[in-house]
């Protein structure tokens, strides 16, 4: 038979249906003979009723909501490599011709090696977009892997040159490129070559991390992006064995660390003021 105090401590999880069957039975037995606990249980249920009857919002049109939101979204440089619709290919061909002329003139010869802090970098991006657009589907994966490798080369160079923001941009572009290639990488035409390429990307990612850690910057965002990119490769490889590392931070709210283990028969800790077993960013 449960004590009066224990029963009162367990009434809230009991009312929320969170106790195991045998625990429920023990509470039931006590309540059957205890008017005070029965009355308290009624109060707990009344409070629950109030909490669950807070009404949902009436329907809200999405379009005006989005337009208002879009107007205040911070502008970020779009780093994805676009897929151009076919009707624009003529324009692109002209652009390609222009780039070719520029190359002939010598000014674009340096573009393929341009780094994100170079004025020629936009030329390089255009060249890459054109190259990818005109690549036949069966060669597309090879080009994507080359471009992914190029992004890591840039990220490493920027980290070494103490330009962490540009390194972050290259790492984000890497993630987008590798994400685009993910489906093809799951089923590559040449599995050994694809595996070797992914392995090489891992080595390059490690080099970016090393360059970042070696500098005075040791930028946390670069570190996070390297970890995220590594996760991405794990996912593609099917070797994702969980993640570790710095949690995401939203404003002042840090995403806490480990995923909690389910507890089969949780025991309430009712005298809980300040008695949480783990403090999170939500605790002030």
């Amino acid at each position, binding site marked *: 038979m449960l004590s009066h105090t224990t029963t009162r401590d367990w009434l*809230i*999880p009991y009312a*929320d249906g969170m106790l195991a069957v045998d625990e429920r039975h023990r509470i039931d037995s006590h309540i059957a003979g205890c008017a005070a606990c029965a009355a308290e249980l009624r109060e*707990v249920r*009344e409070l*629950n*009723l*109030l*909490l*669950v*009857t*807070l*009404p*949902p*919002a*009436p329907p*809200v049109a999405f379009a005006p*909501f*989005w337009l208002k*939101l879009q107007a205040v*979204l*911070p502008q970020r*440089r*779009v*780093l*994805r490599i676009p897929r151009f619709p076919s009707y624009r290919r003529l324009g692109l061909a002209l652009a390609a011709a222009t780039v070719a002329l520029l190359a002939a003139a010598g000014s674009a010869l340096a573009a393929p090696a341009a780094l994100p802090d170079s004025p020629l970098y936009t030329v390089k991006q255009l060249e890459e977009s054109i190259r990818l657009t005109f690549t036949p589907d069966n060669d597309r994966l090879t080009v994507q892997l080359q471009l992914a490798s190029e992004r890591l080369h840039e990220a490493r160079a920027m980290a070494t040159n103490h330009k962490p923001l540009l390194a972050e941009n290259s790492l*984000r572009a890497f*993630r*987008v490129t590798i*994400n685009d290639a993910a489906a093809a990488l799951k089923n590559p035409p040449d599995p050994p070559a694809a595996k070797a390429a992914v392995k090489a990307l891992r080595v390059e990612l490690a080099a970016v991390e090393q360059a970042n850690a070696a500098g005075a910057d040791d930028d946390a*965002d670069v570190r*996070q*992006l390297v*970890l*995220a990119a590594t*996760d991405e490769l794990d996912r593609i490889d099917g070797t994702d064995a969980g993640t570790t*590392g710095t949690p*995401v*931070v*939203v*404003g002042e*709210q840090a*995403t*806490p660390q*480990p995923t*909690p*283990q*389910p*507890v089969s028969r*949780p025991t*309430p*800790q*009712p005298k809980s*003021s300040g008695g*949480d*077993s*783990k403090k*999170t960013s*939500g*605790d002030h």
Partner: protein
Amino acid sequence: MAKVQDAPSLEEDAEERRLIDRSAAGDQEAFRQLVLRYHRLVINVAFRALGELALAEDVAQDVFIKVYKALPGYRHDKPFKHWLHRVAANAVTDALRRRRPIVSLDGMEQPPASRDADPQDIATRHDLQRAVRHAIASLPSHYRDTIALQAFGELSYGEIAKTLDIPLGTVMSRLNGAKKLLRERLGSLAHDEEEANTA
């Protein structure tokens, strides 16, 4: 208690990852699709917390701006929905605390009542709902954040544990403490409501 939707299928999960990564890279069309998926959820959380649609929409806008800014650091190490719930819960409890306890006369903010509903009952219910919201806002932060996920986000104990990354026992302990304080602060209001319902 209402349950949140089941976990997305693998295909949906892959699609969501793609949208998140593209949004993180600055693709606003991808972000639009993410917002389209979740705006209803966030507005609902905010409305249940604040009781005013215009204010709920403003808070929902803030939530998505925070999400957009933070997405480049998101690592897929927890479901996006849990992460979003946490951002939303923090935003609405902040808004709730900032908001002065005013008595609104605008019945249009509440969902339409049935024709048979007694106007006096409706007014009483709205007063109760306001009292509950303000009582939640007055709780210590660790209680407030936890019960906000239950009352406003309609999450189960397990989902709260995952969202806050705390053990289930801690969720239980916090909800226990929060509800005891709420009962003290709401006094006889809940009891009166129950009597009104059974009358």
